[in-house]
């Protein structure tokens, strides 16, 4: 592609992208909705306050919808309600239980005078209704959804495609609740995405299928425990929105279509949150020999107001492997640790490292570190580094053993530079420049409406 033709082609692509937005309402692809572990910067160390899923992701509670409106998006013009409208000093408060040592805490900086609008105007209420406030659902009913369109650029190729069409809901009656997602997707026959969540079995590259990533019934046991059974997100590691990150993709713990049927118990206390799930297998794939059974779980402890550390573990076994299609019993184990650290007001570091043992492979690992810098409310600059080694495959019975390669016996590295802009209520534009060893560089742009 020549430099001269690039802007014209890009402009055409974007025009096409925006023109196709209405079409995305009837198309679908594979992508999970948001969970933002960096919300720790606003004092939200746990997920259950804002999400129906106790470990985060997808469907928001009414409180979560309000926080999305107040904290997530950019506010234009007069702002009386957002985080930016509350002027705090940048210094850390330190501990509220112990005295600061002299010199341990920076001298408090003079705070800017609160703006007149902040002190005198009535703060604008947050939107909590479904569809940009169109329907404020009754309290027992939660509704949400995601429509996501994407443009992918690599080398001279560019394509625009629908990425996600999902609706989520949950009904709560007393301590009992039931919920799930329903959506549509169209993926190519050899795509690793979406198929594991399909409800229908239409074949072909242009065929559409219904899918349900989650569906469950559950019961709240007091305010801290809940038990759910159904098709659930696997409780493991950092619940990031980047399902394509190696740390989610290669551990098969993403929220795109890696959910499994089973039962889980979750705990959400003041400093500790944890969830463990017994995996009965994914009953949206067949035959049964591909269904993985085992457990997955994590626990995260908030060491301080700004630091969370966690551990995760997963072991599954299947009679054959759904991804590699090896027709032998396959056991997968992934065990690791993760952390979230809120440094300064706008900056959060998230990192995860997991060891992986997979049948017929040497010990492998996967790692991830991401620095999220919120330049201005709603505008995030994100840098991500990844490392992966799935472990070299053992020699086959005939004696053949694949050579070590990046990611298969040798370390493989990747890096992302991203801009994530929540530019209007319930609208997000994200651009990721991704470079991966042995895969080159590519650009992914997404327009996301979260209903």
């Amino acid at each position, binding site marked *: 592609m020549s430099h001269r033709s690039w802007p014209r082609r890009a402009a055409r692509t974007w025009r096409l992208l925006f023109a196709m937005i209405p079409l995305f309402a009837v198309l679908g692809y594979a992508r999970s909705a948001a969970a933002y572990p960096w919300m720790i910067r606003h004092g939200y*160390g746990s997920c259950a306050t804002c999400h129906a899923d106790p470990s985060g992701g997808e469907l928001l509670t009414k409180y979560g919808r309000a926080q999305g409106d107040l904290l997530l998006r950019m506010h234009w013009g007069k702002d009386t309600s957002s985080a930016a409208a509350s002027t*705090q000093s940048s*210094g850390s408060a*330190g501990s509220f239980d*112990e005295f600061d040592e002299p010199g341990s805490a920076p001298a408090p900086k003079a*705070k800017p005078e609160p703006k007149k609008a902040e002190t005198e105007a009535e*703060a604008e209420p947050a939107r909590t209704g479904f569809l940009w406030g169109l329907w404020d659902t009754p309290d027992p009913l939660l509704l949400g959804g995601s429509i996501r369109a994407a443009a992918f650029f690599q080398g001279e190729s560019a394509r625009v495609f629908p990425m996600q069409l999902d609706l989520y809901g949950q009904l709560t009656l007393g301590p009992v609740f039931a919920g799930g997602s329903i959506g549509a997707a169209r993926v190519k026959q050899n795509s690793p995405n979406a198929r594991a969540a399909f409800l229908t079995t239409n074949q072909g590259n242009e065929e559409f299928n219904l899918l349900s990533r989650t569906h469950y019934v559950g019961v709240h046991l007091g*305010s801290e425990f809940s038990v759910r059974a159904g098709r659930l997100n696997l409780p493991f590691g950092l619940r990031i929105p980047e399902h394509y990150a190696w740390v989610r993709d290669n551990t098969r713990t993403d929220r795109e279509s890696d959910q499994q049927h089973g039962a889980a118990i979750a705990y959400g206390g003041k*400093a500790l949150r944890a969830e463990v799930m017994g995996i009965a297998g994914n009953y949206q794939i067949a035959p049964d020999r591909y269904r993985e059974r085992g457990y997955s779980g994590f626990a995260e402890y908030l060491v301080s107001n700004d630091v969370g550390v966690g551990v995760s573990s997963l072991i599954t076994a299947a009679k054959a492997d759904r991804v590699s299609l090896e027709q032998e019993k396959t056991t997968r184990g992934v065990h690791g640790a993760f952390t979230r650290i809120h440094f300064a007001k706008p900056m959060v570091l998230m990192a995860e490292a997991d060891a992986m043992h997979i049948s017929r492979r040497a010990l492998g690992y996967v790692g991830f570190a991401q620095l999220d810098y919120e330049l201005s409310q709603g505008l995030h600059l994100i840098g991500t580094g990844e490392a992966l080694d799935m472990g070299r495959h053992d020699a086959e019975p005939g004696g053949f053993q694949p050579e070590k390669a990046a990611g298969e016996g040798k370390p493989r590295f990747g890096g992302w530079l991203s801009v994530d802009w929540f530019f209007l209520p319930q609208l997000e534009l994200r651009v990721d420049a991704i470079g991966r060893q042995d895969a080159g560089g590519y650009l992914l742009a997404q327009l996301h409406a979260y209903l």
Partner: protein
Amino acid sequence: MKFGRAVMATWLALSVSMAASAKLEDAGDVDVRFLATGPGGMEIKGEASGLKASETDGQLKIKVPVKDLQTGIGLRDSHLKKYLEVEQYPDATLEIDRSKLTFPENDQSVQSSATGDFTLHGKTKPVKFSYKANRTGSDYHVQALAKIDIRDFDIEVPCYLKVCVDPIVKLKIKFKLRET
């Protein structure tokens, strides 16, 4: 020699007398914060914009305006001001008998606790607090920690969209007192 001792004793007595009569007032380095918690580890860290301290008849009075409390979210600030009825009760105050406080020697620090009368939302209750003071000349660099139950001050427990905060709120105050 005797005369010298007499002069020294007189000077010391005068110094002690003057120190006892020197009044305290705030001298900057103010940092007033509070921490409220909610379900699932939710934390609300708030800040006040100022603090005034003065001494009258051996009573030290510390006053913090609550009209401009900042919690990190504009809407939450607005809700908080309604719960505190800040137009009617614009200040929180702590009054302590100076004689109940321990003052360090120069370049020394003390750590202790005391009880003062804390007024919030128009209600006054005794509140125990711990404090630490470092002295540099006539300045005392003070830190104080306390916990209050907002229900003791007739403040309704704040809830928003069914998420309620814990009524126990932690306070942390730093400021500089100066003898004048």
